[in-house]
Every structure is written in structure tokens, then in C-alpha cells.
């Protein structure tokens, strides 16, 4: 009997002793849930012991950017989307994928030079391998045969990312008319990229412009609905696209 009387306090002590171990492993009483949530998500917003990095980029010309954002929105819904939809109805998807591959293959110099400038020699080599394989066996890039070769995985690189890799920040967020979200750094990168894009050297100038137009329409026809989805899901589309762009570019720079 003596022994039985001792059990209850003993169990109580045991519980006290083990409770922290329990709490640390996820068995939490309902009353304690709020505290755990706080601990997990509120204080300092920690991931792996480090504060979550939020990209903060100045937006000094926000009113102008918002105007261009609206302009691009209307351009998309009133012009680009109907054109791309009609184009998609006429040109079968496999052809459009092929055309997209050709343009991507032609951008090889951008990826090659950017990889080299970032000291990514192996990546530059892979890109060269891809380019040779797709241009020859893939009939001028129409078929992405290199994709079947796992070690030749492509990696999007451009001069904007290269500048980011060198430690240059965005400077300021920009919405470019027609081209969309960008920044001072990335717009400069794009300008540089255009010198590495063979399409820029097509003459006459009208032909070059036509090719660019085709590229935009073709790409849009393959991505219809994406813009609408993101816009529909957002409360403040301007901020949503700005943040998505900056997060996306951040990841590209880090890779």
C-alpha cells in the first residue's frame, strides 16, 4: 500500500521531468499550441537558425511603375492574349515547342558568356555541348535532344544574374513597358544580353523585329493562363508580381 501511495507523486515527478522532452518533440497540449506557434513562426522568423532573407529593393518610381504595370496588363489582355490564342489555335503545340527550342538554342551565347563571367567553367562547357548537339542532331535546335543526356542539363544564366553574382544589388525595381518586371541591374543586363542574342543581328531591321515578335507571341501561347492565375490569386497584383520577380531572380543568382 505504501508503495502504491508513492506511485502518484512519482508519476507526477516523472511527468514534470519528461514534459520538456515531450514538448520539444511535438507532443503539445492544446493550450500550449499558441506558444509553440509563436516560438516557431513569430519570433525572429527563423529558418535553420538564420533569419529568413527577405529581399527588400527600393521602388523610388513606384507611381510610374504602377502605370507601366497597368499598361502591360492591358497590353496582355487586349492584344497579346488574343493574338497568342489565335496563333496557338493555328500552330500545333509540338511546333510551338520546337520554335521555343530554336529561340532558346539561339540564346546560347548569353548563357555561355554569363557562365564564363561567373567562373562556371563546367556549366559553360555543358552549354556548349548542348548547343552543338541540339544544333546538329536537333536540326538547328528544333528538337531538344540534349535533354535526353542528363549531364547536359541547361541552366538559365544571363548578364543580370552575373552582375548579381558580383554582388551588385538591384538598385531599384522597374517595370519596363512591354517587357515587364525588372530592375536597374537586370535592365542593364538585358541590354547587354541583346548584344549576345543572334536575333539582334538579323537584317533588315524589320526581320529582326518580326522574329522578336514571333518569339514573344510563341512564348505567350505556351504560357497562357499563368499571368491570370497569379493575378487572380493576389490581393495587390503589383506587389505580388514585384515580390515574385525579386524572389525568383534571387534564386537564379544563387544557383
Amino acid at each position, binding site marked *: 500500500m505504501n508503495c502504491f501511495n508513492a506511485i502518484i507523486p512519482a508519476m507526477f515527478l516523472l511527468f514534470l521531468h519528461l514534459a520538456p522532452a515531450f514538448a520539444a518533440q511535438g507532443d503539445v497540449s492544446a493550450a500550449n499550441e499558441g506558444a509553440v506557434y509563436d516560438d516557431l513562426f513569430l519570433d525572429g522568423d527563423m529558418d*535553420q537558425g538564420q533569419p529568413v532573407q527577405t529581399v527588400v529593393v527600393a521602388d523610388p518610381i513606384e507611381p510610374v511603375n504602377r502605370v507601366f504595370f497597368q499598361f502591360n496588363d492591358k497590353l496582355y489582355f487586349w492584344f497579346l492574349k488574343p493574338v497568342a490564342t489565335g496563333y496557338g489555335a493555328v500552330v500545333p503545340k509540338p511546333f510551338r515547342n520546337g520554335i521555343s527550342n530554336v529561340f532558346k538554342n539561339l540564346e546560347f551565347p548569353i548563357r555561355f558568356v554569363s557562365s564564363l563571367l561567373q567562373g562556371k567553367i563546367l556549366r559553360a562547357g555543358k552549354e556548349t555541348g548542348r548547343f552543338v548537339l541540339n544544333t546538329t542532331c536537333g536540326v538547328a535546335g528544333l528538337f531538344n535532344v540534349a535533354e535526353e543526356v542528363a549531364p547536359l542539363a541547361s541552366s538559365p544564366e544571363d548578364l543580370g544574374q552575373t552582375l548579381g553574382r558580383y554582388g551588385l544589388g538591384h538598385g531599384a525595381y522597374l517595370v519596363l513597358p512591354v517587357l515587364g518586371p525588372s530592375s536597374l541591374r537586370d535592365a542593364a543586363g538585358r541590354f547587354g544580353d541583346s548584344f549576345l542574342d543572334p536575333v539582334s543581328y538579323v537584317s533588315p531591321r524589320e526581320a529582326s523585329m518580326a522574329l522578336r515578335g514571333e518569339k514573344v507571341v510563341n512564348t505567350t501561347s505556351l504560357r497562357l493562363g499563368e499571368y491570370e492565375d497569379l493575378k487572380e490569386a493576389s490581393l*495587390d497584383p503589383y506587389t505580388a508580381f514585384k*515580390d515574385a520577380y525579386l524572389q525568383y531572380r534571387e534564386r537564379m543568382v544563387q544557383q
Partner: protein
Amino acid sequence: MKKLLTLIILATLFCMGSPQKGFTDQKTPISVVENAVNKVLGVLQDETISVEDKSRSLAELAHDFFDFEALSRRTLGIGWKKLTPAEQQEFVTLYADLLEHTYTTKIQDYSNEKVVILGQRVLNARKAEVNTEVVEGSKSIPITYRMFIMNDVWRVYDVYVEGVSLVKNYRSQFNSILAKNSPREMIEQLRAKVESFESSN
């Protein structure tokens, strides 16, 4: 005294077993994601159920898979404490509706995409991430689920699509709203958004 000792030993053994629980058999983060993906695909491919029932089943699955309170707290960050408890509950419900709607409509566009589960990475004692890829033709979209464990259940608190965190993206939006509006007005804007979905359906 023997009885007491036995009890203590049993209790200790029982407790020693539990810390590893989180990372065994059916309860690893990766198995939770696998399970959820299979269930979702099962619902989508079942041709015997109506579109409405599909949406309902998908919503239920979403509620098991995502921890909407965690998502809400993380999204608002310090702003969470500026809401009254009642407002917090309101926010969680509305935000869940918004995400659920986005997720269920998006996923129903599913045609011949394939979900590949790549692996999991433990972030700390409570957190892990599961890397997946949605493959459609030559396109593949990397999707990472950030999960945490509470009461022995792994649930999602953030999703990264192509490196873009859903939570951070919404945080930037709510912050920009809160910069010019009161928490009450922010909740009303969220409600208007959710209602616009419901009226369009």
C-alpha cells in the same frame, strides 16, 4: 516498490521511444507529401465523382495537408499580434479560403502532369522540406514544401514554387496593404477577394 520500479521503467521506455516517432515509417515528411499527392491524384482521376464533390474532397485534403494557422502567422509576421484573437481567427478562415480556392482551381487544370518526389531535407528538430517537381512534357516546375511537426503530425507551413515562397509573396502584399490601412480594412479586403471567387463560381 517493485511495481513502482516496473512502472517507471515502462514509462521511461515508452518515452524514449517517442522522440524518434517523427521520423519513422508513415510519419516522415516525405511520406506525408507522397500520401497527399496520391490522394489528390486519386480524386482527380476518379471519373465517378462530380466536379462539386471533387472540389470538396480536394478542400478537405488541403486542410489536412496545410496548417493554415501556421501559414497565417508566418504570413503576417509581427502583424499577427496587431490583430485581436477574433480577427486572427477571421483571418485564418479567409486566408485558408483564398489559398484553397487557388489551389483547387489550379490543380483541376491538371491534365498530364506528373509529380516527382525528389527527397526530403531536415532543417531542424521540428522543420523539414520536401522537394518535388511537376513535370509536363519538357517543362518541369520545382515545388518545395516546408513542413513542421506538431502533435506528431507533419504539416505544410510554406510552399516554394520555382524558388518563390508563397508566404513571403503574400506577406509583401499584406504589408503593403497594412502600410496604408488598418488590420480591420485588410481583413475586409481579403473578404472581398474571397467573395469575388465565390460569386464567380
